[in-house]
């Protein structure tokens, strides 16, 4: 009865999954820092892609976002990404203006 209000329906995750996610995270981190340090071509795009891959692994596997219902996933992921993206997009016009003024 105690569990009625709680969320016991979440499936059990085996330790293998966590080990796999951890190994993936380590590989991504290593590659990310290597790319930044060596300055390989397409470095910035690669770092951003690896960053998003890491963020996906952490939020979906460690924060159990993959067990949530779709509207909540959408609210979290799209809500944050769209708001921050909009902020960057709006702020960049100001930046271009400042650069033009300083010339």
């Amino acid at each position, binding site marked *: *009865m105690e569990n009625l209000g709680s*969320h016991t329906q*979440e499936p059990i995750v085996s330790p293998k999954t966590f080990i796999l996610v*951890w190994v993936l995270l380590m590989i991504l981190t290593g590659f990310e820092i290597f790319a*930044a340090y060596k300055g390989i071509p397409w470095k910035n795009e690669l770092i951003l892609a690896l960053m998003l891959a890491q963020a996906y692994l*952490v939020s979906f596997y*460690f924060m159990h976002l993959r067990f949530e219902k779709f509207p909540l996933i959408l*609210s979290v992921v799209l809500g*944050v990404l769209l708001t921050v993206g909009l902020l960057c997009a709006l702020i960049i016009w100001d930046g271009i203006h400042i650069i033009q003024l300083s010339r």
Partner: protein
Amino acid sequence: MEEIRRMEPIEGIHGLPEQVSAEQFAPSAFSRNRKKLMMWIFIISDALLFGSFLAVYTFERFISPSWPDRWKIFEPGYLAVMTVVLLSSSTFMAVAVEGLKQGKNRRFGFFYAVTILCGIVFLAMQAHEWAHFIGLGARLNTNPWGVPLFSGLFFMITGFHGFHVLTGVLILSFIGVLKLMGKVSDETIELAGMYWSFVDLVWVFILAVIYLL
């Protein structure tokens, strides 16, 4: 008010009253668990805070004529160790929560303790990095590389993140003691685990945007 009062038995320990039909409480996406939803709302708002910080950082970098070469300030190996410590602690926390759900208390206790330890190690490493950076002559308003905003933003963003880690360590320790006394539910620990993973998530973005890009 009527609605709320009728909702209450479903949350409590009394079970579902028989006279309430199932359709009345048809599961909505957001009705799964109130505490967890609150935690998600907190995490979204905190994510927007860090998102704004990183947007400001990118903006300042965009309008500055030059930007310091980060590899003259930071060691890649040291940075890698910091990241590995934090990512591992997040993994340990997830394993601990999973152990708790399956009733494996020994596994939970071990990984929970290791999680807190990793948090403390990360804080110590960050303190050392700050000391190194301050030793090079960086202050909030000046830095030796000519762009004063870099060190100011660096201290502010990593400081905010470090404060989150410190808060996380304190919360986990506090809840751990309460757990030993048998005063917290498993759900509270799961929510604390969500917060801890979020701190890790923020570090992933800080690492890429401030240190590596």
